[in-house]
């Protein structure tokens, strides 16, 4: 498992707040899916969010780039508050990369076109420059040779690495990972986690929803436990895993670690 890699230092130098969520609530119809979420993420911080399914983890990180709308409270990303203002939403999305469980690559475009699309059309980067950057990131995720293939021709692990490279091409300040390895065959999980670990080493601010506890131990500065729409507990990984405080956390950890 990737936990064999050297754990990254947990303390962070920067005090700049990258993301702040204050008293955020969200409902799906009558269902109160997020309750009083307060979270601030500093620049360079790496946060792993875990919790049982349906606990609102994905919804929470999807609120950060407004794929989901929150109904109460305040979310500020890189100094921009998320409101109904479409301009602000698009500005935030440029700076916040997201990797999805099901990759969401564009099947009608080649890998290279997937990577250059947003830099060219959103950042107005010249095509040649965007392609050079794309090849650089493909090398970073170790699949430069797949540049001219279509996503449908790649394995799940390769597709997810392309998806990570696609987000990186926008040069984001924050990366959100929404269960990036959950849809992968077991033998492909490591290749994706390795890319994520390398990304963490480079100092990227990251929020990962994942069940990979080895990854959490290696990479996270902070592990967050969510249940029923609330943040129940958060701590440094060592303390979180060795000395969980709440009963719900203990129960969750016992279910996920000893089966």
């Amino acid at each position, binding site marked *: 498992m990737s936990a064999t890699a050297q754990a990254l230092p947990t303390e962070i130098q920067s005090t700049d707040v990258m993301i702040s969520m204050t008293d955020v609530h969200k409902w799906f119809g009558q269902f109160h899916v997020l309750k009083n979420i307060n979270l601030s993420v500093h620049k360079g911080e790496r946060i792993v969010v875990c919790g049982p399914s349906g606990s609102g983890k994905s919804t929470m990180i999807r609120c950060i780039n407004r*794929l989901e709308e929150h109904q109460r409270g305040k979310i500020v990303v890189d100094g921009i508050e998320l409101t109904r203002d479409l301009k602000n939403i*698009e500005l935030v999305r440029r700076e916040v990369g997201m990797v*999805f469980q099901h990759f*969401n690559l564009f099947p*009608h475009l080649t890998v290279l076109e997937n990577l250059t*699309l947003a830099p060219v059309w*959103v950042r107005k980067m010249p095509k040649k420059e965007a392609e050079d950057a794309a090849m650089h990131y493909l090398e970073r995720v170790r699949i430069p040779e797949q540049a001219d293939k*279509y996503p*449908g021709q790649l394995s799940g692990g390769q597709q997810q690495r392309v998806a990570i490279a696609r*987000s990186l091409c926008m040069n984001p300040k924050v990366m959100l990972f929404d269960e990036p390895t959950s849809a992968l065959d077991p033998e492909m999980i490591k290749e994706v986690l390795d890319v994520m670990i390398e990304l963490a080493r480079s100092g990227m601010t990251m929020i990962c929803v994942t069940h990979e506890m080895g990854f959490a131990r290696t990479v996270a500065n902070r592990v967050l436990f969510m249940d029923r729409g609330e943040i129940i507990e958060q701590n440094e990984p060592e303390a979180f895993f060795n000395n969980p405080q709440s009963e719900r956390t203990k129960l969750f950890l016992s279910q996920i670690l000893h089966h």
Partner: protein
Amino acid sequence: MMDTSNVPTGPRQNPELEEISPPITVVGPVAWLRTNLFSSPFNTLLTILAVLFLAWAVPPFIRWAFIDATWTFPREVLDGARGPNRGDCAPDGACWIFIQARIGQFLFGFYPADERWRVVLVFILTFGAVAGMLIERIPFKKQNALFLFVILPILSLWLLLGGLGLEVVSSRLWGGFMLTLIIACVGIVLALPLGILLALGRRSELPVVHLLSVMLIEFVRGVPLITVLFMANVMLPLFLPPGTTIDPLLRILVGFTVFTAAYLAEVVRGGLQAIGRGQYEGAASLGLGYWSMMRLIILPQALRISIPAIVNTINGAFMDTTLVAVVGLYDFLNIVRTGSRDANWIGTEIDGFVFCAAIYWICCYGMSRYSISLERKLDTGHKKR
């Protein structure tokens, strides 16, 4: 005691076995016949019936259309002594000299004979530009698109209508195959973008846009094309300030375009619905705005899925151009039928219909072949190649 020397104990190699070719019942013409024509008693019966039907129907048609047909004018007509008529044709064969005698009118309607080169020029330019767009190997796509969608329409309008040094030819004189092609091309070229906009409008979250799109689509789809054409012809002038007259052909074009657009909108909407939420989220998470997302991510995929249905609708629209006859325009079919009502050509209806059918079929078959090749080319989807 048993002799075990012949019992295989592991993977055995027998080169001779691999050389044996499959039995005749698996490959070759016999196998093909068996699987495709005689796979069950019922299929065998169907095969026999189909062969009998073809034997009954095809030879007489071939005799009528080719062997007994009259292809050339008689001596006196060629000498200019008199005009041709139905009597110059064999009574039991197709009368193709009817088509030859009238071909100018069938193609150009009542367009003055001396000015017909203008129409030919327009079609050569259009055909060339369209071929340049459709065939992948030909370069200069951008310049070509500019020519096709900006310069050519203006140039064509000038060439066809006249003015500015050319003799003016009123659109009332347009007719025949030329009119059919003009209505079909202009209608379809305008209807496709309009249909896409209507489809997007129908899926829009803005209530006004949504409601207007739904109303237009459902209204137009709920009414036969003939009614739409009548309304365009009679009602459109009522909405305009009194005294303004619009060219009748233009009214028809508006009606035909809106009608085709409504159908295309529903086809495109079907394609849009097939695109998963993940594609929208993937595009949105990269900071793409609504129009970029639609143009670059959603529509290319949605339209690819809808190609068969779009071509189906366009094919239907091409046929529906014949309905402009009800408001007094002489499209291809109408002018051929009118031609066979001429006193000299009584008894040529079937010949005319067969000729029309052949031309329509060539056009539609061409469209359908192109759509199939386009589908193959764009098939980058989930299949591994």
